[in-house]
């Protein structure tokens, strides 16, 4: 045993300084970035026939991109007039497959990955910004209830296992969320945060409500991954599947009709990504802990 204590000490501290400084590993990316200055549709140089370039939108397997979002689509003059680009990419649907990035890479390089990470889990401009569902950003007064420690209960409601792996990764020495006072708890009765992953299948929904009933207030629900947020790749083209009912259930926690009341009353925070990067999950947990979200 002693040898392991020694080895552990010898190994040294490998944790990131993350909340103090953004010392991410190389290749870390959190969001997609849409650079309106580069996009052909927002420049005056339009294609010969005046039609916008929709390459990224066509490529997206989940329909997350809406290039025309901020335009009056009938008035194509707008494109040339440099109307403001807003909410082009809906990060709630994106599975980070990178197809849009590569589509655009030899056209205008307007879409790219970014490693921006916001204090209250917000993201960059031109990416649809309603990551916080139902949770208001607290103004002056911080909600300091969880300041000392935060207990998290994880529930898998139909995920692929990658999300679990990423959540479990928070315990490894690199992220080491214990040092920040965040712990995974086995029982919902001690939990402050319910961390939900997966597409919210019918069978798991009942169990989730049960867990929710047993979790004391005040509590937060964090939806980890695009699965519970919108269904991601699972929902995409549900309509095409020949009316298969079961498929339509894969549309995630937010879109599930059964959750109507919960959505109104609970504090829900979304962590996009497929799977969500551990840094992003950690960031959301830290925001809850430090009271950046009001109740």
């Amino acid at each position, binding site marked *: 045993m002693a040898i392991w204590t020694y080895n552990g000490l010898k190994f040294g501290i490998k944790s990131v300084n993350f909340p103090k400084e953004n010392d991410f590993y190389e290749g870390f990316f959190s969001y997609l970035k849409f650079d309106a200055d580069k996009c052909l549709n927002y420049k005056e140089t339009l294609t010969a026939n005046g039609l916008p370039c929709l390459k990224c939108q066509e490529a997206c397997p989940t329909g997350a991109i809406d290039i025309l979002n901020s335009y009056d689509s009938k008035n194509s003059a707008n494109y040339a007039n440099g109307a403001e680009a807003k909410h082009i990419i809906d990060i709630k649907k994106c599975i980070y497959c990178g197809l849009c990035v590569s589509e655009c890479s030899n056209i205008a390089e307007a879409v790219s990955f970014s490693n921006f990470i916001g204090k209250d889990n917000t993201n960059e401009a031109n990416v649809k910004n309603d990551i916080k569902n139902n949770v208001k950003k607290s103004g002056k007064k911080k909600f300091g209830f969880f300041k000392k420690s935060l207990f998290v209960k994880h529930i898998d409601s139909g995920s692929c296992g990658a999300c679990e792996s990423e959540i479990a990764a928070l315990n490894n020495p690199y992220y080491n969320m214990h040092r920040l006072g965040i712990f995974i708890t086995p029982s919902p009765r001690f939990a402050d945060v319910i961390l939900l992953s997966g597409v919210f*299948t019918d069978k798991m929904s009942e169990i989730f409500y049960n867990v929710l009933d047993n979790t004391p207030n005040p509590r937060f629900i964090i939806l980890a991954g695009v699965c519970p947020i919108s269904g*991601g790749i699972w929902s995409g083209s549900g309509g095409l599947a020949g009316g298969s009912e079961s498929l339509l259930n894969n549309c995630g926690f937010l879109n599930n009709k059964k959750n109507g009341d919960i959505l109104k009353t609970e504090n829900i925070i979304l962590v996009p990504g497929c799977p969500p*990067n551990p840094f992003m999950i950690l960031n959301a947990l830290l925001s809850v802990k430090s009271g950046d979200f009001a109740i």
Partner: protein
Amino acid sequence: MFKKFLGDYEFIWGPVKKGVCESSYYHFLTSSEELHELDITLGYKTRNAMNAAKGKRNLYEQILIMERIAGTHAFAASLSYCLAAEDYFGLTGKLPDCVKLIRMFFAELERLRNHIENLSEISGSTYLEVPSSLYAYYAEKIKQISSEIVFSRYLMGINTVGGVRLYNLSGREFIMNNSNKNNAFTDDKAADFKRFEYIATEVGSYIKDIEKIIKQNSETKSHIDRLKTTGKINAEIAEKLHAEGVVAKSAGINRDLRLKHPYLLYKVLALKPVLYNDGDALSRYLVRIGEIRQSFDIIKICFEKLTKNMSKQHIDDIHEQGKNIGDTGKLQHDMRSIYNYGSSGSGNNSRSDNFSGSNNDDGNSDEHTGVERNLFLSGVPHNKYGFGSVESSEGPIFCITGGFDGKIFKKINIKYPFENNFRVFKHFTKNTMMMDFNINETSYNFSVAACDK
């Protein structure tokens, strides 16, 4: 349900369990120490993956679904799908060696990572937190370089039917912009080799450290003693129950697809199977260690062969195809093109396959029209099935595809090894110690998601 005796009691565990784990439902019958009966119910997270796949628009989107059935085996699953699709289109023999090597490279990287993660879990289950954390750290490192090189920590989105999607992202620019150190991703062409060299050397340094942990771990008596004779399986019964992967290998059953039905270039490698005979948790642990070494050897061989085989022409070709992702005619992995292309190119399978490189020595690829570039996708839809099988870290993954309608496969199925292994697990946990249950379960490394597809 269970036949109870005096003092026996039942209890259930799940679907929501302790810690971070997938949803499955265990029903135990026990008399405190000994576990008499175990009933496992899965199906809490069924997502109807096959239906979802049928609703997709193109083959690449189907691949994205296949990867997300079980995310930790994403590469193996997408590879099995691609092999099946290539079999369907009759492209198996036409794939250039460098694509095969790249696929093997990443397939082995995934196997390696999964094994290391499992070593971490096993150490954790015997309450050795230090080695558990150390293993987890290196698994994390492997995910990080995956993210750095291919923009997915779980190697998702690399495989495409007929090729690999490596040159897909403006990744280089991103890496350069965000990099503190001046690494080698500057030169366009050289960078492509450098990626593999970078992964191979980094993983090599991790393996060195991991070997040290393994050595110290095997000297830790409390660790080895807990694993020894725990969850012992009997080779004969295991064979009858069709044990797969590590579980089979631990009982001396050689069912490694890379040896029995070699795909890609595994035939050339002359692999030796990693076999142990005891069938207990220790054997499974040792099989994993053996496979880590084996996988790393294969990674090294693949890298060497890649540097030898991958001519500038190959890189140009792949690069070209990656660049022209928007040009539907040119891009071999852009499956949206397959429809037009299937109708225009059908019946003309004799046109040369540029991608194979050998008959493209003029180097003037722009001369060819898009249809020719995409040639190996010109398979005419037929009524037969394509079949692909891949050895993942936990055993074989089979995929069958058929009913191509010009865009997607209408008939498609995938089979993971876990269903069989759950049967084996259930059979052999009877009359074991309750205390050992966690170690035993961990050593199987189940993916519930793969069963509940």
